[in-house]
């Protein structure tokens, strides 16, 4: 799980162009949206694509994303349970 969390942080920084951030800046329980990392609605769509492309998870209901993308912890837990690759 720790390796997955590390990988997610790396992907987040690269895919979402969080230029001034490093892995050390993102805590496992940091809020990804709102007052946390300050991601926006386009970032949310990018995360949905990332789940599909990297882990073979297709979100049928985008509303699910709200709880899945709450933090690195919640993302890692969801991916571990649902990944197909």
């Amino acid at each position: 799980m720790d390796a997955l969390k590390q990988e997610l942080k790396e992907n987040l920084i690269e895919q979402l162009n969080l230029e001034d951030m490093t892995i050390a800046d993102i805590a496992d329980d940091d809020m990804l949206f709102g007052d946390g990392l300050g991601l926006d609605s386009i970032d949310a769509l990018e995360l949905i694509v990332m789940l599909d492309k990297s882990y073979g998870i297709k979100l049928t209901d985008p509303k699910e994303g709200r709880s899945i993308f709450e933090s690195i912890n919640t993302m890692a837990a969801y991916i571990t349970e649902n990944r197909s690759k």
Partner: protein
Amino acid sequence: MNTNYHIKSYCSIKNNQVSLNGSVVYKDEEESFSSFIKAAYKDQNTKYPKFFKMDKLSKLAFLAADVLLKNENLSSEEENNIAIVFSNKASSLDTDRKHQESIQNKESYFPSPAVFVYTLPNICIGEISIKYKLYSENSFFIFENFNATHLLTYSNSLLSSNKADQVLCGWVEFDGEDNYEAFLYLVSAEGTITNSKQDIIKLYNT
């Protein structure tokens, strides 16, 4: 039509060099466009993380506008009625190609929302408007070449009809790392350079 408008200031970015009113403000000969524009942005100390999420056309337009408008000491309290009239030849082709590549293969069909939102050239105007809180008139025109006559006519029209107090206009072209150029200028009632076709072309060619 009032022809007493002037070019208050101008900025150009080409050949890995940023100039404001004819003076070089940043230069880097070794870098690729991506490295150059990032270094030039950091040199400006603007602190606007969304810059890194922009496509290359928007980065180019944003930086040129930022260098120019920062020098104007705009009021952050009052609304600045600055219209924007941009133009280029390649539209958003660089980003269009990137998007097309992501949907080329049906077996690996993963279009990026963050890329797709930049598949229009006027998105770069939106980026500048958001940063500088401009709620003004704006247009983006596609021409075969730099069209000083059109920019002159359009900016004069916006000013004489009181649609704007100033007009930020020019040419922002990006069609590959080796083919980019931005030339923006601010038309106003103030300034020493006449807003004329001859002067616009002269500044564009410097």
